[in-house]
């Protein structure tokens, strides 16, 4: 039964992808990418990758759609027709697809317990996580401790993206925007979305906090939580206007969140070094290595959440500020 549903979702995915390529209306394309992400999230969920599904839904379907729309507000809705056509691109994609299909002939069956990925490191993780960390969610254990250095790298990818947008869009300090008379923006005159939205915002933020602090037990963690909380604040900005959202969470706070989150994560690593362990070896943080691991995971997840939330909101505001300038 689940296979039928997965097949249905994957077919929809292909149809959406073709539609994204075909359409010349960029607004439609953005909406379709949002649907694409939602379908993808459903697919991840069917494959039992709940952590990834959460991220894809919050970031792919939620935040990036808003950022794409803010970018569209700066440019235009229609794709410029290009001379030359798309035959070369189509040919390249066709060849690549054929190569990947060729590769998949020798692929282990989906869910095959004898597949190499289930034989080598995965059993070790499953066996050792209770012993070393004593937390139920092995995915969190892998992401934040066994391969914590990768996650630190990802936080710095987010950090780089954030400073890149701020640097290239050249957002000036808030002085000018504060002085200018604020036109009423947002959806203030639309009663129903406003009332419903206002009701939703606190629950979204609360859910974000739950995902943040429950990441060791269930699906979730800092990355998903940061994205969910950012979605809540962006919803608030859409309802009440960007200036109102900036009054609630000013730009300086956002920058402090990004910088603070990245530094917090790194600082945990450095403290581990100073206490005589390897970089990011949380076991040395407390007398009991298991508690040390748990403590380290908790703190770095907080750092991830801060950095992701601050970065997504900074990027959103950078586009919105650019919009109000023009």
């Amino acid at each position, binding site marked *: 039964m689940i296979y039928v549903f997965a097949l249905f979702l994957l077919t929809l995915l292909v149809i959406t992808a073709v539609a994204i390529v075909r359409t010349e209306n960029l607004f439609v394309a953005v909406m379709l990418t949002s649907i694409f992400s939602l379908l993808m999230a459903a697919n991840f969920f069917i494959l039992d990758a709940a952590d990834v599904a959460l991220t894809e839904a919050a970031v792919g379907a939620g935040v990036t759609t808003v950022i794409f729309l803010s970018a569209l507000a700066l440019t235009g809705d229609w794709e410029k027709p290009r001379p030359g056509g798309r035959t070369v691109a189509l040919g390249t994609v066709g060849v690549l697809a054929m190569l990947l299909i060729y*590769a*998949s002939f020798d692929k282990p069956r989906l869910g095959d317990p004898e597949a190499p990925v289930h034989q080598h490191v995965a059993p070790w993780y499953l066996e050792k996580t209770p012993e070393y960390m004593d937390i139920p969610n092995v995915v969190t254990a892998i992401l934040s401790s066994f391969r914590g250095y*990768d996650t630190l790298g990802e936080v710095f990818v987010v950090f*780089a993206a954030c400073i890149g947008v701020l640097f290239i869009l050249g957002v000036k300090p808030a002085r000018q925007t504060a002085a200018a008379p604020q036109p009423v923006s947002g959806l203030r005159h639309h009663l129903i979305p406003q009332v419903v939205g206002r009701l939703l915002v606190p629950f979204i933020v609360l859910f974000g906090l739950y995902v943040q602090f429950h990441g060791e037990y269930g699906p979730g963690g800092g990355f998903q939580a940061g994205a969910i909380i950012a979605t809540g604040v962006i919803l608030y900005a859409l309802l009440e206007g960007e200036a109102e959202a900036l009054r609630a969470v000013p730009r300086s706070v956002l920058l402090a969140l990004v910088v603070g989150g990245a*530094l917090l994560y790194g600082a945990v690593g*450095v403290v581990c070094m100073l206490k005589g362990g390897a*970089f990011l070896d*949380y076991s040395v943080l407390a007398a009991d290595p298991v508690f040390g691991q748990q403590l380290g995971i908790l703190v770095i997840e907080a750092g991830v959440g801060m950095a992701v939330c601050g970065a997504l909101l900074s990027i959103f505001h950078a586009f919105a500020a650019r919009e109000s300038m023009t």
Partner: protein
Amino acid sequence: MTFMEHLPALQVVVPMLSAPLIVLLQPRGLAWAGATAAGLASFAIAIALAMAVLDGQTQVYAMGGWAAPYGIALEVDAFSALVLLLVTGAGAAALLAARVSVDRQIEPERQPLFYAAWLLGLAGLAGIVVSADAFNIFVFMEISSLASYILIAGGPDRRALPAVFKYLIMGTIGATFYLIGVGLIYMMTGTLNLADMQARIGDVVALNPILVAAGFITIGLALKAAVFPLHVWLPNAYTHAPHMVTVFLAACATKVALYVLIRFDSMVFQDRLSDHEFQFTLFALPLAVLGILVASSVAMFEGHLKRLLATSSVAQIGYILLGASFVSEAGITASAMHMFNHALAKGGLFLAVACLAFHFRDLRLSELGGAARRMPLTCAALVVCGLSLIGVPGTAGFISKWLLITAALESGLWGWSLVAVILVSSLMAVVYIWRIVEALYFQQASAEGDTSFAEAPLQLLLVTWAVALLNIFFGLFPHLPLALANGSAALLVGGAP
């Protein structure tokens, strides 16, 4: 653990954690000073690591205390030590010289973000080089690519934006290809650690995914490394970037991608797949030869100084790939040496360009008349580095070209024709360097131009000359890079377990 044991981790952590701190340093002088201090510290770490490697130790570091393949391992051997030296050296030297040039090109309130991006680029490149984990390499590739897009787009030249957009699209395709390849290998071996991959890939019976993975990884990294004909993003990106960014990136960015390509291919694929060495040669050799000849001839007719040098970089990447395509110890030695020497020569040339840019807004060759009279020291440094790029005896460039010719002769029947290619392209290099010299020394200054003596700021000039002198020093005493290059070759070709 002792301080020395932490060095591989510190190599990445020091510049990476300095970046968020730099964002907070608002007065611009402070941001530059902080970034330069971090750059110099990582250069010092690279030197310490190289010394340790020369003593015969390979440094292995288990991140988080988890041994490979369960955790992520860092590993510094001769090859990584050599590339680390040139990455951090280029980063530190460009930062030392950068202040005056960056002050002219980037507004003061944006400078902290600029220097933060610079350090992230440095940390990303260093992270790729020290990593022994295929996925970790991807993560740091993302950091370094994002940082280089930011840096290139940062200048006052608006033409950088379309150039960087092209780079972004092609770079992302390259990184995605690499990731697809790593995913396929993971599917068949269940591991991400390179050494573990090497051990387990021999047991794989069904080879389709591995072969496709080898293709994706090679093409993806070749895109990142600007191997001909996947180089189209490079000339414009380097031409319109801020001058100091060009110095940094031209010296080391593409070489790191080549480093991963050579390491991945020789560690994981060449030992374990039958005929893979032959296939690799069949793929890399024609591209290298074409790249050398086509890019050199384009450079001969190029009218803009920066684009001329950027185009010549594509030809130099061809030399490095040519050495690797022999799959012999001599070939890898030549490749590694040429990475090092080309970084010195091209870094020095772009530093001299940054000096020229102080008094010549327009860097087209036709506008550079009388430059030698106004800026004699800059022009002399440019000539020294140009000679090294050509490969004149007594300069660093000669050593690697000599090694390359030796390796070509050893490679078999076609050796002589490859030697001819190297010689012809060196003659082409003479032509395009001569065109620069002609413009600087013998061209009439434009009538309304100022002809008084006006050198570049001392700080920038000193770094430029230091690099120029290093080109001569390593031409006369190439022992240090040569020892590391020989070590890399023995490791990658000779010492396969």
